[in-house]
């Protein structure tokens, strides 16, 4: 508690809007009729389905295996029947469909036999723990969705500090807060497991100072778990104190290098939700199939729900007393960093922390708000607010001019898209939209560059091949001419001519053979053939 705190530059103070959803206790959302599980809920390659349409699956059963390299498996959230494996609307700012597994639930919620069996993890090695965490499909639940097992590997013992992030600085979002209120001891145990996997002894839990109750509960849990080495730190309530890089800077005074990872300075940062999921997976053999989600905004009863992953958003809105018919906008994530959904039938995924309904709130900027932008007056307020020490105004000009080299010179890729610049902008310019546009376009251009390089190689080879073939043909002709020149006598020539004519005749005879595949044609195919014949005849006449 006595740790000296540092400050990060910038940041804004926002109205919290957290009380609405924290007054009522957390309840478990009902099992929906349909569970939709996208195959790509994490950063990395999509999972590969291992079930077929029509299969009956049980709660906790693996239905999609992790793909190559960076990936995470997906488990059935409840028991039921697979009705489809197809493209469905997923929570993505584009609103485009992506492959999903759809389960029609049977309401019995039957689990696989080993589900929920307690076990002792102390004897497991770091390697085994990581593997268990990977098999449980755990990804970073703070929002990024990076497979957690990769952040629990301590290569060459470079990592010295593990930070557990319970800051949750964005307005409205309260799922981590409620998780700490209900499961403080599990979170501390999860942290101990992570520590064992990383083989380090320095751990910090960070909580914002607007959550005194949770701070006290966590302190008690640390005492109960006999984990005095865990440092519990209270950080000031500034947005975005919960950003990974900002939190690290605040706690240690160290800055994560530009375009680098916290790992580069010997730190890993996990979310409290991830720690809880790790406890469930390691101690109780329960894979990641549910999570806490805040439902707030224009609903009769804003609260935190424990939701099965794959539950449609509309189901949650109805459960909290929202009227689906009057919805104008649903945002997934918080008001600062979330995105508007195109469809309320999309499922919640592993990284969903908040559903914000119909938010007509004037004191926070909302993603994809109406275009009321006015010209930039170059006031510089954005630069003062930027927590990443960037120059948002310069980024804006260059992104707007589509000067993608320049925008990268100004470190566009260090932007965390927190929305602070957007929030303070007196001209209401949707700055983050410009940065997102520039980032995604640059990524796309890089991908196209790789493809065009392949095309260039193929074209060069094509030209080479044409050249080679030409040479070979010339060579052959030369040889033939030589051969003909050698057989100078009249008889030989005649014989050669005879042989050639024989060959031609044979070939012609062969061509008269009817193709084998024109028997038993349907009417349509015959018509097509006739059409083709007619076209060919026309073409010949034209010539």
């Amino acid at each position, binding site marked *: 508690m006595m740790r000296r705190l540092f400050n990060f530059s910038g940041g804004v103070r926002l109205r919290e809007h957290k009380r609405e959803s924290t007054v009522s206790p957390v309840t478990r959302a009902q099992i929906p009729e349909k569970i939709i599980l996208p195959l*790509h809920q994490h950063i990395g390659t999509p999972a590969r389905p291992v079930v077929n349409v029509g299969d009956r699956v049980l709660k906790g059963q693996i239905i999609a295996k992790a793909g190559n390299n960076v990936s995470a498996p997906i488990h059935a959230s409840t028991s039921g029947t697979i009705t489809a494996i197809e493209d469905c609307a*997923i929570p*993505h*700012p*584009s609103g*485009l469909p*992506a492959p999903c597994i759809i389960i029609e639930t049977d309401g019995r919620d039957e689990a696989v036999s080993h589900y929920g069996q307690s076990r002792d993890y102390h004897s497991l090695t770091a390697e085994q723990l990581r593997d268990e965490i990977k098999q449980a499909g755990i990804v970073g639940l703070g929002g990024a969705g990076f497979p957690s097992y990769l952040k629990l590997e301590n290569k060459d013992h470079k990592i010295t500090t593990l930070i557990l992030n319970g800051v949750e600085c964005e307005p409205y979002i309260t799922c981590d807060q409620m998780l700490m209120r209900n499961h403080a001891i599990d979170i501390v145990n999860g942290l101990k497991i992570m520590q064992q996997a990383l083989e380090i002894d320095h751990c910090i839990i960070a909580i914002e100072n607007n959550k005194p109750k949770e701070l006290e509960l966590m302190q008690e849990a640390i005492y109960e778990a006999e984990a005095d080495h865990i440092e519990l730190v209270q950080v000031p309530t500034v947005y975005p104190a919960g950003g990974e890089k900002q939190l690290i800077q605040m706690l240690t005074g160290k800055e994560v290098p530009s375009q680098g990872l916290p790992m580069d300075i010997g730190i890993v940062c996990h979310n409290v939700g991830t720690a809880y999921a790790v406890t469930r997976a390691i101690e109780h053999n329960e894979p990641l199939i549910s999570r806490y989600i805040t439902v707030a905004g224009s609903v009769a009863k804003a609260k935190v729900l424990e939701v099965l992953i794959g539950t449609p958003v509309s189901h949650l809105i109805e459960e909290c007393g929202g009227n689906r018919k009057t919805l104008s906008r649903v945002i997934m994530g918080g008001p600062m960093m979330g995105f508007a959904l195109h469809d309320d039938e999309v499922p919640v995924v592993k990284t969903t922390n908040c559903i914000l309904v119909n938010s007509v709130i004037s004191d926070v900027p909302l993603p994809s708000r109406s*275009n009321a*932008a*006015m*010209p930039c007056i170059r006031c510089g307020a954005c630069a003062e607010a930027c927590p990443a020490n960037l120059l948002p105004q310069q980024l804006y*000009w*260059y992104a*707007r*001019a*589509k*000067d993608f*080299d320049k925008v990268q010179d100004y470190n566009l890729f260090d932007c965390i898209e927190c929305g602070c610049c957007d929030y303070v902008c007196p001209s209401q310019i*949707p700055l983050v*939209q*410009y940065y*997102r*546009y520039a*980032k*995604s*376009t640059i*990524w*796309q*251009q890089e*991908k*196209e560059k790789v493809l*065009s*390089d*392949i*095309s*260039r190689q*193929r*074209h060069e*080879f*094509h030209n080479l*091949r044409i050249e080679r073939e030409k040479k070979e043909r010339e060579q052959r002709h030369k040889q033939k001419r030589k051969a003909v020149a050698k057989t100078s006598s009249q008889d030989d020539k005649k014989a050669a001519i005879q042989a050639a004519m024989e060959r031609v005749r044979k070939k012609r005879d062969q061509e008269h053979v009817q193709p084998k595949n024109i028997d038993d044609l349907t009417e349509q*195919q015959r018509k*097509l053939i006739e059409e*083709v014949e007619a*076209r*060919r005849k026309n*073409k010949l006449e034209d010539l």
Partner: protein
Amino acid sequence: MITAIVALAILAVIFGLALGYAAVRFKVEGDPLVEKIDAILPQTQCGQCTYPGCRPYAEAIAKGEADINQCPPGGETTIIALADLLGRDPKPLNPEHGEEKAKRVAVIDEQVCIGCTLCIQACPVDAILGAAKQMHTVIEDECTGCDLCLPPCPVDCIDMVEIKSTTDTWTWDFPGNLPENLASLANRVNPAASNDDKTSSPLEETSSKKTGTEA
């Protein structure tokens, strides 16, 4: 006298060897400017620029024979990149060479294909697979969407199909410039406001003008 001649001759030999070695050791492969231009071009090899492929077009630009706005597949992005490289002003795409379209791939209707191999010969990147009197098919990943296989097909069985955007290839929309009415309002309040956007691309200005006249 003789010593002088000998000394100079020895020097000439030494320098000759040094220069000869340098010429081999530090040889510049081709014209680096052509390479740089070629790297920017989209490598569709479609010939819409009137040159037989991207590299000949790059060579023509380097020589100053061709303008930088003749590449429809590359579109605005390529023109801006070329302008940047060559230190020229970007200009809108020359409509004589075609217009910028979404990326497409060729698809052969296998029911209609007669196996004539004409498209295979036309394909600049060898992305069509087949043999005489055998059905042909396009390797989608390698197809650049150049349209060159369309004219030779005697049975018109090749279609150009737009590539559908997926969550992996999707990009955020450009948030747009100021709405027309607001921009004019700004002009009225401060006449200089219209001139201060020096960093904004001239292409956008022309395109917004175009939409303005249409409206």
